[in-house]
């Protein structure tokens, strides 16, 4: 298992917005079945790093590889050719993403939110997609809510629907971009419980979060970013209990 090629390989990734360098030569491996938590102050590049993994951001240099395939580019004759929309969509379909603001489609019911992509992208028959969607809703604790519109649900329920929507594509990898930051404190627990359950079932996950407790209990690897660089990386015990870097120590002292 440990000898196998990592599911995600990120090498020398660099990205800037204008003159602001957001990611500065980031290297990261994520093995299959592992949970990687990205920590760091806001503006440290965590979200941008996550968004590069499914090519929502285009890196300036370096590369991301998922399951041995370059993301967003084809390597040929010492050049990287950007892929067309169709090929990028095929790659994105294997990587699920959960957003801070949920981004459910407000004009579609919960059921239609979940089956939209399986129908349109994977060509699953409607009946089968609906059965699967109901299973997923039960799994995130929302059985029977398939007819509701997103606005009729609480934030925590919306985020759990968003997780079900991502799972409906049978992804190899799930990306979470601050999934609990927009929630009322009392609703955070229900979303983290679903994520913990997913982690235990062996889902590969990359999670940007400020929930240190979640990182400590669930993460296999904790990565600490600051100023676009990874300054700490290792098991939760090492990084959270004995941070070597001054910046990480200050951050953890502030959030704990």
């Amino acid at each position, binding site marked *: 298992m440990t000898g196998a090629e990592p599911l995600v390989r990120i090498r020398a990734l660099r990205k800037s917005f204008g003159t602001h360098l957001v990611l500065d030569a980031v290297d990261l491996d994520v093995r299959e079945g592992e949970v990687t938590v990205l920590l760091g102050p806001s503006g440290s590049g965590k979200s941008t790093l996550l968004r590069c993994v*499914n090519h*929502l951001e285009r890196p300036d240099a370096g590369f991301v590889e998922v399951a041995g395939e370059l993301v967003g580019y084809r390597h040929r004759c010492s050049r990287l050719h950007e892929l067309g*929309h*169709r090929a990028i*969509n*095929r*790659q*994105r*379909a*294997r*990587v*699920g*993403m959960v*957003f801070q*603001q949920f*981004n*459910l*489609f*407000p*004009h*579609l*019911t919960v059921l239609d939110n979940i089956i*939209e*992509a399986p129908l*349109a*992208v994977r060509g699953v028959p409607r009946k089968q997609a609906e059965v699967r969607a109901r299973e997923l809703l039960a799994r995130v604790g929302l059985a029977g809510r398939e007819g509701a*519109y*997103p*606005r009729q649900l609480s934030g925590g329920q919306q985020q759990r629907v*968003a997780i079900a*929507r*991502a799972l409906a*594509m049978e992804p190899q990898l799930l990306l979470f971009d601050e999934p609990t930051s927009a929630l009322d404190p009392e609703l955070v627990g229900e979303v983290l419980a679903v994520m913990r359950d997913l982690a235990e079932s062996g889902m590969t996950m990359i999670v940007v979060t400020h929930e240190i407790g979640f990182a400590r209990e669930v993460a296999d690897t904790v990565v600490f970013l600051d100023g676009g660089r990874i300054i700490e990386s290792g098991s939760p015990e090492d990084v959270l209990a004995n941070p070597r870097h001054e910046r990480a120590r200050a951050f953890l002292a502030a959030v704990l």
Partner: protein
Amino acid sequence: MPSSDISAATARIPAAPEPPPPASAPRSTAAGPRATDEQVLSAKPVPLRRPGQWASALVLLVLFAMLVHTLLTNSRFQWGIVGTYFLNGSILHGLELTLWLTAAVMAAGYVLGIGVAAMRLSANPVLSSLSFGFVWLIRSVPLLVQLLFWYELASLYPQVSLGIPFGEAFVTFRTAHLFSGILAAFVGLTLDVAAFSSEIVRGGLLSVERGQTEAAQALGLGRLRIFRRIVLPQAMPAIVPASGNLLIGMLKATSIVSVIAVQDLLYSSQLIYNQNFEIIPLLLVATLWYVILTTLLSIGQFFVERHFARGTNRAARKGLWELFRGNVPLLGRTGTAQGDPI
């Protein structure tokens, strides 16, 4: 003690009015000594009175009654003649032309307008500036001038040819035969609708959060699917009201084609009054038809808006009748003015 608390709490609900307190009670509280809790709890709430609203409503009602009165009693409106011509054959022909010209112009204009909006939002600077230029030009030129221009195109370009740009021509047309009044009207009005609708569509598309597109992209949905299934339906609540406005405006703006001798509803009635000099009654005939059509379109717009309000908080759950009553306070139980006792 707890039982008396509960009874006090229920007394606060005005649905079951307490026996009215003695008339002297409120006066004595207003004067000086502080009222007991029981007195305050048993007092009946009286909403703020709004005499101004009622006075203005009365003034408007009197003015409205005067309008109805003069419409009915001024014999110079000649309602008899209006009735005679209301279903006249050439009026109905004009009505038909107005209807299909509006429909055709709106359909073609919106197809073009969506394209122009897409160009404007495109990352390609050439497309985006061409789109900007088109909208700028069409919106700058008065519609009347544009119509006359297309109608008189033959004097500017006696012939038009298809061929290699700046090179050889394969086919040549005489424009004098090409641009009849009706085609000039169609082209001019379509370009006008395209320019204005593109801005409406663009505004609607921009009103949809960026996160919606990103979530759809992250699921691997194709660009066309995202536009058709995710972005456009969410843009519709912003697009529909302005489009209803444009449609109703265009219904009446088609009457401008009378300047290039196209026999629409208005021009048909003008042709009749040029012969019998019954100017006012025939203008009323045309106006009544415009009123009827606008009413139908407004009702249609109401239902379209309600359809696209799905899943939003401001979903119009009210029926048409309720909405009507709500907007006519003197009839409505739902009107705000009704809540105030006189």
